[in-house]
């Protein structure tokens, strides 16, 4: 892969609650961006329980674990999914990776910063929760995409994550994606509610990045281990992802 050496846009995709659709959103957004001739790196930020490789049907030999533990070159650890779309996979079932030491965090950050200049976008698919890795990936990123569904638990956890990031790390650049909505109206209502609470209590105004409708194509794509944007580009969810992709490039 050729040297690029620009400052990429680093976007962290987090949700607080698990199972909201972070990984699915991340790989589909990466597919959409790469289809627009952008170079995209997806980092599996769920360091101890990775599943981007599963979602993409990859058989990976090397992961971020070797980068951290053995000093492996991260460039040699990348997997190219399609032209311009690269994945840096993580390990699964390795508790040590879920709680990196201070020195390991420093080392990982240095390793990542050596390669990100080759890309236009770096998307970090974080773990669920508000663990250390979630917080420091978010702090590292330029922007946080908070993905949530209309479920009360998802809304509460997304809000809790943003509250921690604002209170402890003074982050205020949040862009919300409402997933699994019945209608555009529902997405806008959830956003309005979240925006009101963020403005009232945390004095921050989030941006509305878009809503992704309920769509059977999403579940089918997970089972096929392919991005739905690729397997069913005309599906409603795919069109919503394309809208978000286009808004990022505007």
């Amino acid at each position, binding site marked *: 892969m050729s040297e690029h050496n620009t400052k990429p846009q680093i976007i962290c995709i987090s949700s607080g609650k698990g199972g909201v659709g972070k990984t699915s959103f991340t790989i589909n957004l990466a597919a959409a961006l790469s289809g627009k001739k952008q170079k995209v790196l997806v980092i599996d930020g769920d360091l101890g329980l990775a599943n981007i490789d599963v979602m993409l049907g990859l058989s990976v030999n090397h992961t971020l674990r070797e980068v951290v533990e053995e000093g492996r070159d991260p460039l040699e650890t990348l997997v190219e999914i399609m032209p311009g779309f690269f994945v840096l996979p993580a390990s699964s079932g390795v508790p040590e990776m879920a709680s990196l*030491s*201070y*020195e390991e*965090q*420093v080392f990982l*950050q240095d390793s990542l910063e050596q390669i990100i200049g080759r890309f236009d976008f770096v998307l970090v698919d974080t773990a669920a929760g508000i663990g250390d890795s979630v917080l*420091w990936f978010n*702090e*590292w990123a330029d922007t946080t995409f908070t993905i949530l569904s209309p479920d*009360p638990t998802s*809304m*509460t956890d997304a*809000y*809790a994550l943003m*509250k*921690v990031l604002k*209170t*402890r*790390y003074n982050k205020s650049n949040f862009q919300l994606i409402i997933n699994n909505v019945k209608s555009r109206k529902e997405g806008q*209502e*959830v956003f*309005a*509610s*979240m925006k*009101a*609470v963020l403005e*009232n*209590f945390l004095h921050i105004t989030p941006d509305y990045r878009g809503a992704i409708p309920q769509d059977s194509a999403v579940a089918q794509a997970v089972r096929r281990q392919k991005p739905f944007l690729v397997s069913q580009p005309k599906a409603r969810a795919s069109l919503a992802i394309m809208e978000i992709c286009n808004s990022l490039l505007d």
Partner: protein
Amino acid sequence: MAHVKQQQHGGSFADFLRLIAGQATDFAVECVRVEGEEHPWPPALLLLDPALPPAAKRELRRRVGADGELAPNVPLLEKQSGPAEMDSLRCRVDRELDRVKKSRIPCGLLLIRFNGTAIERALPIIEETIGPDSRPALYDEWTLAVLQTGMNRRSLMAMAERLYQRCAARLTRNVRIACALGTARDLAGADEFIARTARELARTDDKQRRVFSAFAEEEQDHSCQVTAEERAQLFSFRAGRPQ
């Protein structure tokens, strides 16, 4: 990641010298701060073997421009007995906070004020209670500062209470103690950490309490918790309630 950035870019040369000077207090060395005219901080430190003959020490000082042996701008760091100076404590706090960020094992700082009682009389009681691994420093005429490593909130409060009980039983009841906890999430530097503890010491007077604690960590934890009001507003759109 904030810790990383601070670690990489935050430390100045003055901080580095302060660190060295602090570490020097743990060894049998003489540490001479060579004062500079252009900067408010010493531009160099001279570490000397105390066993050197006086003439050799003088010569070494002369070579680095610190030849006025008794000049007040060339202070020797404290001896290895009696209370340490605050500069030394500040260095130790610096080092300890750095360690806390890496190890995530918190530390505690205590300020113990003896109103109207000579510090020298209190010192043996304090030293006996805190053990040999820690060394009190002289915060001001009436106040000692004690840095305690590997302390959590509970053990720090227990230590403060133990110190109070012993002082009250053997010396005076007119003792005020303030504590602060340094945690990995706490981004305060040494000066802020010490100042925070000093603010708590002032509060012991305001509130007429013998022990007062500043647990920023506790305040932060509470400030991040999602409250009932926040939840109620989050879900208000479902019930069609006004937001």
